[in-house]
């Protein structure tokens, strides 16, 4: 057991899996010589060579399509979109080809698309997004959104070993800010199993990614304020997502906030809220509340971005409103 940053944990997972499995290779823009825009793959090219750590042209479509082709030929490609925002350029290859391949003809596409995502540092409209909602709507893609260093490593291992296309959203704001214990060795984390980030009895917050920490801050404030006990469920993966864990928490607390950094309308929170309404209506003591980014692009300037991103104060206000029921 060692204390690692979230970024080190991703890097460790990639390195260990590349050492274990010769089929794994990396491809992306500036990932080789330079080690990636965020240095997740620093030193990889020296260890694994140019054939397994490929600096590619600026071509998200070609990178993603080439990964699909190589995967069909028995490789385990992991590509990096330099920022998750740029996955829009690869949308067609993911949704049209990779996602539908196994359904159509039964041949698996074991690719991982790494997606540095999220805001909080004035990245502006094109370097801050959380585009998981687009892909959660598409059958055939798996989606991981780790919040902790242990999960960052455990889920990248599982993503690479999964026979399906996996979108791995790594939150940039967590890269160096979040440290935590990462178990040594082969510690793959199963997809579709939520984690109870903190136990509570009055209200549940269902969330994932960086918003786990926003929820934590709000919950701490609520506890200090009037002793409200908040349970935080970290989904870890949203395709598949752990309905049982969510419904169990709702049954326990009867009040629920669904929190994410993605925009509101048709965000993944809508799916969670609808499922709770369908399957846990009678256990609810209050309406299901969604706290999300507004339906706008991500603004650039610090005060505007702060107004965009869900803040602990927004979540605390939500807790207070639900507590009044």
């Amino acid at each position, binding site marked *: 057991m060692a204390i690692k940053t979230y970024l080190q944990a991703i890097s460790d997972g990639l390195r260990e899996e590349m050492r274990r499995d010769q089929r794994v290779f990396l491809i992306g823009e500036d990932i080789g010589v330079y080690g990636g825009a965020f240095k997740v793959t620093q030193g990889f090219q020296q260890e694994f060579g140019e054939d397994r750590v490929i600096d590619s042209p600026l071509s998200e479509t070609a990178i993603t399509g080439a990964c699909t082709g190589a995967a069909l030929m028995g490789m385990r490609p992991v590509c990096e979109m330099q920022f998750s925002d740029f996955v829009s350029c690869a949308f067609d290859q993911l949704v049209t080809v990779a996602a539908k391949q196994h359904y159509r003809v039964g*041949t698996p*596409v074991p690719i991982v698309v790494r997606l540095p995502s999220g805001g909080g540092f004035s990245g502006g409209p094109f370097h801050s997004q959380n585009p998981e909602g687009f892909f959660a709507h598409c059958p055939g893609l798996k989606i991981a959104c780790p919040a902790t260093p242990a999960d960052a490593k455990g889920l990248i291992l599982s993503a690479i*070993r999964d026979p399906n296309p996996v979108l791995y959203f790594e939150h940039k704001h967590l890269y160096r800010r979040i440290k935590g214990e990462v178990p040594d060795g082969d510690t793959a984390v199963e997809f579709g199993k939520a984690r109870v980030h903190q136990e509570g009895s009055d209200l549940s917050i269902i969330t994932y990614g960086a918003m786990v920490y926003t929820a934590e801050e709000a919950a701490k404030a609520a506890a200090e304020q009037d002793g409200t006990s908040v349970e935080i469920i970290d989904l870890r993966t949203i395709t598949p997502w752990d309905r049982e864990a969510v419904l169990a928490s709702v049954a326990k607390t009867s009040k629920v906030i669904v929190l994410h950094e993605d925009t509101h309308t048709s965000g993944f929170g809508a799916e969670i809220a609808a499922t709770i309404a369908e399957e846990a209506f009678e256990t609810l003591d209050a309406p299901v509340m969604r706290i999300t980014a507004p339906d706008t692009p991500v603004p650039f300037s610090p005060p505007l971005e702060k107004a965009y991103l869900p803040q602990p104060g927004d979540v605390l206000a939500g807790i207070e409103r639900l507590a009044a029921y």
Partner: protein
Amino acid sequence: MSTPARNISAVPEPAPAPRISDEEALNLYYWMVLTRATEERALNLYRQGKLPGSYYTGRGQEAISVGMAAPLRRGADGDWLSPWIRDLGSYLVHGVPVWRMFAQFMGKAGSTTRGKDGNLHIGGYEWNIPCQVSHMADMIPLTVGAALAYKQRGEDRVAVTSFGDGATSRGDFHEGLNIAAVLEVPAVFVAENNRWAYTTPISKQTKVTDLYKKALGYGIPAIEVDGNDVLAVYSAMSEAVAHCRAGRGPRFIECKTYRMAGHAAHDKYESYMPMELLAEWSDKDPLKRLEQALREERTIDEAKLEGIRTKVKDEVHEAVERADDDGFADPSEAHLGVFAEADTDA
């Protein structure tokens, strides 16, 4: 990632005059006759209301579909082949049984997609055909990736894909060619310039109507061949494949041809296609030309050709019967197979 130096901006020398044996030529003839017979029969079935969806033919382009597939290695460990919608012959040459083609058109359980996809969206590991999608040019980056896998593993396999002139207007074409050149992968790109993308003529598609010139711009050696001459296509393809196997990077072949019908069986092409062009290209029919070459230049006995045609007729008849007898997948299968099960060799 070092490869022998080469003059990437040059148009390669034309392949030496094809030394194709009579046996090889007759083999190409067999596949072309089978391709046309399969398509004609499928079109009849469509018109009789026996095929769901629509039907797309590659009539007039059989020399390309057969000529590009014939030099390839078949089987699961063979060469990757991702043909487009006009290349039914490629699927046959690369090993897909005729009856499964009909099963595919009918949406039967015996189709390679168990009825989950239609027309020439055919694939499977056993033939190393990935299963194309409808989006033109999407298979180009995939083909680069397959070739990349071969290169990484040091295998002398080749990845081949084909597409129409319309595909050259899409981003996947440009990104795919560019990355193939940069990564120096063993891929052959076959552009079938049939001068129509649905109702859009080549003049409205691009200002560079010699498509091979686009590939030269990416640093890929590229040539144009007469796409209605199967021997020319076969020779060019054999040369390109040998070049790839030798580790000399990608190749591009433009086959000049003409689409002898509408985009699909339901489209009224008389409304947009000049009939005089159709008549002109009708005289260049690739099957007629090969027959003529076999008879006149190679003095092959007509009875031999007739024997091939009869064999094909029987094969197609049997294939349709078998596909007809095949059932549909159980409706419950509509919900299955979105995700692959966990990998056991992880």
